[in-house]
């Protein structure tokens, strides 16, 4: 890294000039700063996201431009690696150029200095002592040694030079720091995905972008067991095992085979009293033919398992296909009367058929508990556990899907219990909730029974007839035609209501009634509808003669009518009641092999040692030239340091005072 060179530019060959350029300080500093600036890109632009996200974010033009510049994985882009390689080369050239002289400087006591150059040093002093030269030299030597210096005496023609040095290891600091950079980068290179990129470029491997079962993934996307570096992840449900991990590459993945099989026995999350997660742990069993018996252990965050150089980390968790028992309650006339019980699993897809319609049920998640703010409390910090919930999609034959969220436990509102079901048509929306009232037994039977009666033409017909007759009995001049018309209206109103709620009825009123009659007949129609709905409900209770329905039954009626009124917006022909579950979790493991790690760590140790040697061990040299001057002895002392010139002022003074004191009677020149 020295700037000095005695060769003139014109006489140097190209390779010499290249060597000088690569080892130049200017290049080194430029590269350090260029690397710093280039590194910023990858922190501003989130790396290794799905390519579709980038496409949405930047649009097609910039997306392609950025992709060709390798900006989605900057740190393995060719141009970025080129900077790194140049930096390593530059550092290596520096070490090669300066290393030998540094090593010499570490030990060399510089015995060839002349009186003239000592006199020219910033720090020098001279004095005369009465003792003979040999004694003085011996004393100086022993004093220097006591002060921790390495000493050597060199007889000159008519004088003796005593050379002393401390802190020669400062030069080692230079070597260690610069070699460390090379070592760390080489170790890091071994652990990078560069070999994979190279294999891909050669066409030996192929990145898989499709979501396929393991057995269908082509062999070209699978990596054999070996000593190569990789860092992959895999989700293993409790009770299952895996002998591969998935290595993410750009917008796809590769499958890395492992020489052993990992089974997840159990995954646990522990919580603090405040609800925050306290630990994530997995009980693992490693099956390996090389082991006498399977290895059983527990890993946690910060506590990985190292097996055969493979490190197994607790990285994440997800649902592992929890077993669910569901009751499908029909909400329209077609699906029949009784709930359909069936078992499913999280992530399972199944076709559901009701009448002529069918749709695909896709269960997307299960949560064993939901800690949410309690809507009945003022303070949003008052949270409550709302119990287990499932989320699922219902996909119609045209491919459109509605998203649902159903809670297993009822929620209480104004003292009454409801099943809560949220619906939305896109993840960007908030859930809108349907409240299904529970009957006295705490089930949906009461609601379902009422709903089915409203769909049942025979029942409605009978009730409408009964209602018509009671209504017309109080009217003086009634006839058959009026009765029939009233009956028909009632039937239509109920049909309208179950098909589209109150809003549908309002539309019906507005489109069929003449404008003049709308103001008077409209409200009458609505109260007639409420009356017949109540009659259908009360009639279905089969109460003893003359017994009026209880207050709770009337409240249920009100809630049920509200729920039925919002069913058309709910969009699903059934309500899925979660009756039972068995929670199965999947542990997200990260498995890595990094053969370069010991090399990198070795480099790190070198770097730390080197940095501290370089900054905190100044190299200090002293020379004492001892010359006989008649009966006395003249001493010329000079010193220099390669660090902290300011502090060396005081240091030199103290050393010279010390030496003057101990080398005999002195008289300064």
């Amino acid at each position, binding site marked *: *890294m020295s700037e000095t060179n005695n060769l003139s530019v014109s006489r140097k060959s190209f390779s010499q000039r290249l060597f000088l350029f690569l080892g130049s*300080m200017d290049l080194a*500093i430029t590269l350090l700063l260029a690397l*710093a600036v280039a590194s910023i890109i990858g*922190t501003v632009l989130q790396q290794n996201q799905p390519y579709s996200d980038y496409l949405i974010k930047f649009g097609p033009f910039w997306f392609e431009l950025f992709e060709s510049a390798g900006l989605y994985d900057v740190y393995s882009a060719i141009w970025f690696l080129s900077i790194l390689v140049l930096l390593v080369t530059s550092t290596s050239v520096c070490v090669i150029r300066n290393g030998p002289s540094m090593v010499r400087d570490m030990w060399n006591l510089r015995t060839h200095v002349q009186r003239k150059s000592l006199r020219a040093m910033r720090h020098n002093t001279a004095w005369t002592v009465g003792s003979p030269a040999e004694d003085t030299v011996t004393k100086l030597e022993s004093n220097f040694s006591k002060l921790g210096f390495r000493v050597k005496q060199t007889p000159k023609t008519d004088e003796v030079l005593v050379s002393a040095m401390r802190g020669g290891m400062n030069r080692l600091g230079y070597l260690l720091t610069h070699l460390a950079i090379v070592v760390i980068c080489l170790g890091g290179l071994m652990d990078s995905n560069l070999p994979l990129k190279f294999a891909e470029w050669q066409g030996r491997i192929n990145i898989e972008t499709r979501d396929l079962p393991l057995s269908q993934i082509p062999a070209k996307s699978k990596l054999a067991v070996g000593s190569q570096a990789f860092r992959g992840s895999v989700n293993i449900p409790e009770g299952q095992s895996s002998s591969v991990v998935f290595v993410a590459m750009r917008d796809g993945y590769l499958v890395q085979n492992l020489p052993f099989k990992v089974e997840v026995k159990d995954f646990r999350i522990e919580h603090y009293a405040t609800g925050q997660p306290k630990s994530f742990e997995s009980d693992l069993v490693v099956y390996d033919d090389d082991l006498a018996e399977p290895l059983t252990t527990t890993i946690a965050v910060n506590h990985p398992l190292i097996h055969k150089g493979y490190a197994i980390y607790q990285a994440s968790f997800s649902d592992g296909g929890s077993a669910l028992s569901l009751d499908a309650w029909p909400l329209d006339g077609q699906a029949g009367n009784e709930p359909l019980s069936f078992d499913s699993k999280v992530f399972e897809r199944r076709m559901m058929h009701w009448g002529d319609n069918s749709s695909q049920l896709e269960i997307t998640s299960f949560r064993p508990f939901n800690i949410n703010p309690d809507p009945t409390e003022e303070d949003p910090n008052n949270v409550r556990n709302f119990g287990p919930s499932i989320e699922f999609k219902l996909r119609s034959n045209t491919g459109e899907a509605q998203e649902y969220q159903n809670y297993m436990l009822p929620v209480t509102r104004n003292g009454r219990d409801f099943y809560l079901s949220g619906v939305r048509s896109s993840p960007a929306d908030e859930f809108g909730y349907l409240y299904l009232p529970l009957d006295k037994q705490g089930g949906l039977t009461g609601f379902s029974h009422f709903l089915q009666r409203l769909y049942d033409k025979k029942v409605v017909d009978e009730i409408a007839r009964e209602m018509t007759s009671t209504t017309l009995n109080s009217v003086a001049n009634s006839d058959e035609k009026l009765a029939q018309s009233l009956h028909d209206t009632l039937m239509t109103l109920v049909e309208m209501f179950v098909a589209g709620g109150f809003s549908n009825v309002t539309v019906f009123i507005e489109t069929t009634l003449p404008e003049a009659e709308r103001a008077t007949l409209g409200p009458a129609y609505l109260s007639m509808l409420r009356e017949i709905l109540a009659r259908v409900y009360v009639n279905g209770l089969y109460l003893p003669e003359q017994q009026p329905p209880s207050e709770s039954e009337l409240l249920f009626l009100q809630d049920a009518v509200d729920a039925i009124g919002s069913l058309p917006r709910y969009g699903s022909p059934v309500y899925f009641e979660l009756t039972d579950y068995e929670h199965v979790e999947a542990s997200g493991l*990260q498995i890595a092999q990094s053969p370069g790690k010991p090399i990198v760590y070795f480099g790190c140790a070198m770097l730390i040692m080197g940095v501290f040697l370089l900054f905190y061990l100044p190299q200090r040299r002293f020379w004492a030239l001892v010359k006989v001057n008649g009966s006395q002895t003249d001493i010329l002392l000079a010193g220099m340091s390669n660090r902290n010139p*300011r502090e060396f002022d005081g240091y030199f003074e103290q050393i010279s005072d010390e030496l003057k004191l101990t080398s005999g009677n002195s008289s300064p020149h």
Partner: protein
Amino acid sequence: MNKLAGIMLTETSSPLIQWLWRGAMVLAGIILLTMYYDVFDYYEVGIVVLTAFCMALIGQNWMGIRWYIIVVGLLSLFAIQRYANDLTLANSDFFLNYMLASQSAFMWMSALFVMATVTYFAGLFLRSEFTQKIGTALTWSASAMGMIGLMVRWKESYLIGPDVGHIPVSNLYEVFILFAIITSILYLFYERRYQTRALGGFVLLVISSAVAFQLWYTFERQAHEIQPLVPALQSYWMKIHVPANFVGYGAFAMAAMIGVAYLLKSWRQSVNPQGLLATTLPDKAVMDDLMYKAIALGFAFFTLATILGALWAAEAWGGYWSWDPKETWALIVWLNYAAWLHMRMTKGWHGRPMAWWAVIGLFVTLFAFLGVNMFLSGLHSYGTL
């Protein structure tokens, strides 16, 4: 030998004091280890030994830090004694409520740091050595209150629940206090060594800014509440990675503020050589040297901290280097100061350009420390605002 080692410093303590001090630290370490022999694990023993060793070393020639360690130790023990096992005493016990409960101690620290800043500047403008000495005393007191606050907070976290307890360097609020303490102690070290108090106000300015932020953070975001550790932070590496990092940050911040003083002096000198700042601020060569010292110290510890971080990452995230934004910014800071040091040590650059560069370096450091947590997402999400 002792005398020689002492030459590094402007004054040395007598050998008797030195040996007494070293002995006291060894004794303190041994007492601690025997008392908690059953509960300490391998790493905790290592940390106690390392701490005792460092304190013995740093205090052997520095009277100020010896008193600091003694006062902080005694008052912290006193506070812990007052707490016994009841956290609610923080509001009822006289000493805790007004002095030593962590929140009270931090408030004292904040007030004292601001006062110290004002006093240092007053001393500078009044050319009053005495006023500046008061500034030094205030800085020592502020730093001591901060450190006591951290010590007591450590105990308080265990009073909340044995599983909640942890060293208070786990979130942005706690490390801001750590930053203020470490920067002030680094400054006090160099103040004594270079026998100049004129830079106090400048360095304290950056500490006062940190204090202002931390007060906002307390009152606006309730950040002072002690939170349990997320699983990723439950590691012995935290105890050494975080403090090592803050020695780096503190030293870089100090270098930048000295850079500001340097530029001011250089500007005033060219305008009015007999003016106040031109004559009261230290010699430019002294400031240049101090700037270099601070950056070298910061660089050494930042290197150590980044490597410790890599070792921790290898245990927690599955790889010693993931190009996570925080890691990458640490590298950027490191590269920046590496370039600075090369310029200075091998190209021999001095003066204004290096001072400007040191000031810019503070902004790079600040982004790595705060900006990454505020604007970028990544694995280091513990320090989010």
